[in-house]
């Protein structure tokens, strides 16, 4: 049966008062004198009161003392001792208090144990995360280096592509130049071939004319020969006339001599003979003149013949030259045609080259684009890595703080002793 302390006090008080009230009467029964009985009554009453009071308060202070001790050891962090209060058939508040302190102690023990465990684990995890973060930082650094390497490659690539595309563009320009030159050459060759053809035609024509000239010349020579022969015939006739005239002269001379002999009769005859002689003389002179003239003609015609011969020779020379010219033109034509063919094929080839270099430029541009993409990608990775590094640094910092917190927490509960074996802080 639970009796609150207040009631216990009241009961005790009532018992003491009863003892005081009844003790004089009980002492009176002993038969001492009234004065002694009186004193004895007081003594007995006080003794009984003291004994009862002592017995009661001893029990009470013992419990309070135990409670105080328990509270003190809890306050000092020792949670190992249970509050031991003697069992009573009449429990009061001290028993309840003891029970509650026990419960509190149990709860505290649980809490401290939990915190101890938790902060230990926390500190361990924080450390682990911290070292992981540092490790990640380190490996991120390595990745960063690798990326820098790649990026270096990309940069070199970009530069080479730049150079290459410049070179190719230059090549393309010179190819274009070559093509233009080749086209010009082909055109010039075509013009030259036309000129050469024209020249060849002209030379042919000249040759034609020359042949005509030779034909004409031949004819002239022929006519000339005929003329000479006729001239010779005339000469012969003139000679014959001369001969006849000379003989006639001779005859006339004889006749005049004869006439002189014939005298008078022959006088007439002598006149005729003289006349005849005169005529014959005239004829002979004319014949001689003709001969002279023919001789002159012959002289002249020989000169003319020579001149013609001369000019024929010259013209023949000329013909040789024209022949050379014509064949030269022919040669030129051949060469020029060859040149044109070659120039055209160069133009064609360089066009093809131009197409090729265009394709090359396109390819290089594509490579440039890839290099550029590469650069962009590596840059992006680099940014991400930098971000990661920052995150890892933050993480390392906060886990350090976290570990510190856990340590502080652990230090704060360190002074609480939870199990008997473990040393308390105080």
């Amino acid at each position: 049966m639970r009796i609150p302390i207040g009631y216990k006090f009241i009961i005790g008080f009532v018992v003491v008062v009863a003892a005081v009230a009844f003790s004089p009467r009980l002492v009176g029964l002993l038969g001492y004198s009234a004065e002694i009985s009186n004193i004895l009554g007081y003594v007995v009453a006080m003794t009984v009161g003291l004994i009862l009071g002592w017995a009661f308060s001893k029990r009470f202070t013992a419990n309070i003392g135990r409670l105080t001790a328990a509270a003190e050891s809890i306050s000092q962090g020792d949670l190992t001792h249970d509050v031991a209060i003697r069992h009573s058939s009449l429990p009061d508040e001290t028993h309840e208090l003891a029970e509650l302190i026990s419960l509190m102690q149990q709860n505290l023990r649980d809490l401290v144990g939990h915190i101890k465990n938790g902060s230990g684990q926390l500190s361990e995890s924080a450390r682990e995360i911290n070292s992981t973060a540092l490790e990640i930082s380190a490996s991120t650094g390595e990745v960063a280096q690798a990326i820098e390497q790649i990026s270096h490659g990309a940069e070199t690539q970009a530069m080479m592509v730049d150079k290459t595309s410049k070179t190719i563009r230059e090549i393309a320009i010179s190819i274009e130049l070559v093509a233009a030159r080749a086209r010009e050459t082909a055109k010039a060759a075509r013009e030259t071939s036309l000129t050469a053809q024209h020249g060849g035609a002209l030379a042919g024509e000249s040759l034609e004319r020359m042949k005509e000239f030779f034909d004409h010349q031949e004819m002239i020579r022929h006519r000339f020969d005929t003329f000479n022969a006729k001239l010779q015939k005339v000469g012969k006739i003139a000679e014959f006339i001369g001969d006849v005239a000379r003989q006639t002269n001779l005859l006339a001379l004889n006749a005049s001599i004869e006439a002189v002999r014939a005298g008078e009769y022959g006088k007439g005859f002598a006149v005729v003979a003289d006349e005849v002689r005169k005529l014959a003389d005239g004829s002979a002179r004319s014949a001689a003149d003709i001969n002279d003239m023919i001789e002159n003609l012959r002289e002249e015609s020989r000169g003319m013949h020579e001149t013609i011969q001369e000019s024929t020779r010259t013209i023949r020379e000329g013909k040789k030259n024209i022949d050379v010219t014509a064949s030269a033109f022919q040669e030129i034509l051949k060469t020029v045609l060859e040149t044109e063919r070659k120039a055209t094929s160069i133009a064609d080839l360089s066009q093809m080259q131009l197409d090729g270099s265009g394709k090359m430029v396109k390819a290089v541009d594509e490579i440039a684009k890839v290099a550029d993409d590469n650069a962009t990608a590596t840059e992006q990775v680099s940014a991400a890595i930098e971000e990661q590094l920052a995150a890892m640094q933050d993480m390392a910092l906060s886990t350090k703080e976290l570990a510190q917190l856990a340590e502080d927490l652990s230090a704060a509960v360190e002074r609480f002793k939870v199990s008997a074996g473990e040393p308390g802080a105080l």
Partner: protein
Amino acid sequence: MPPGNMNLTSDSGDATFPTLVEITDEELEEIGMVLGLRRHFDLSVYKAKCMKRRVAIRMRSTRCLDASAYCSLLQRNDRELDLLQKTLTIHVSQFFRNPSMFEKLRTDVIPGLFMARERETGFPLRFWCLGCAGGEEPYSLAILLREHFSGNLRRTRTVIVGTDIDPETLQGARQGEYNEDRLRDVPMEIRERYFQHQGTRFVLAPDIREMVTFLQGDITDVGGYLASDLVSCRNTLIYFNRHDQEKILHGIADCLPAGGILVLGKSESLVGSVRPRFTPVCPVERIYRRI
């Protein structure tokens, strides 16, 4: 179990841990609009994929399930705007990042720049880091100059400027304090000469800090570019889309004199129509000379 016993096993429900958020183009645009209005920050110049991932990080952190929820959060909360902007711009950097590049600058590029400047005195020699993050890069340049060109520095006035869009990052740059991981590529003796070790931080020597001026500036604001002799724009272009990369690179070409130097990040390249404006000095290190 006693009635007063607590339930200690919390249910590890997934409601508190949203899975990957997918952000559509329209949603990104919506968020970009808020950023543009409130911060004059233009999302559209960056690679969209990257931006989506970055926004998703913030959305998950703030447990916003969709873009409209996140937008209304942005409208209410200036701090979230700051955080978002910081998350969007990635500030990974290192002192002497890609050491071989700095070596190349030292041997092949900077002597020529000084020589040209010493012939026509009067003008300062100007170095400009675009997207300088926490100042690691301009400070590296400053250390390089101090280490190897101290004579030239006495003869020629030299200016190093770093610009970035993120004010918070710039503030850190001006402070010049770094965690060890930013110094991974710094040789030991340089580290000892120019940094002071304080706890977990390394503090940069004040005379190096004084060599660099930091300015806030948007890289897409091509009109506001500084006339320079050497522009280093590394690992910043990677976040931008093609069109704006080209615009930025043309802007840089315009602010460089003939013979001026451009340095890009190791995975970046001269895109499109910009290439003919430069000739490579060292393609491996991405050092180019303005024609």
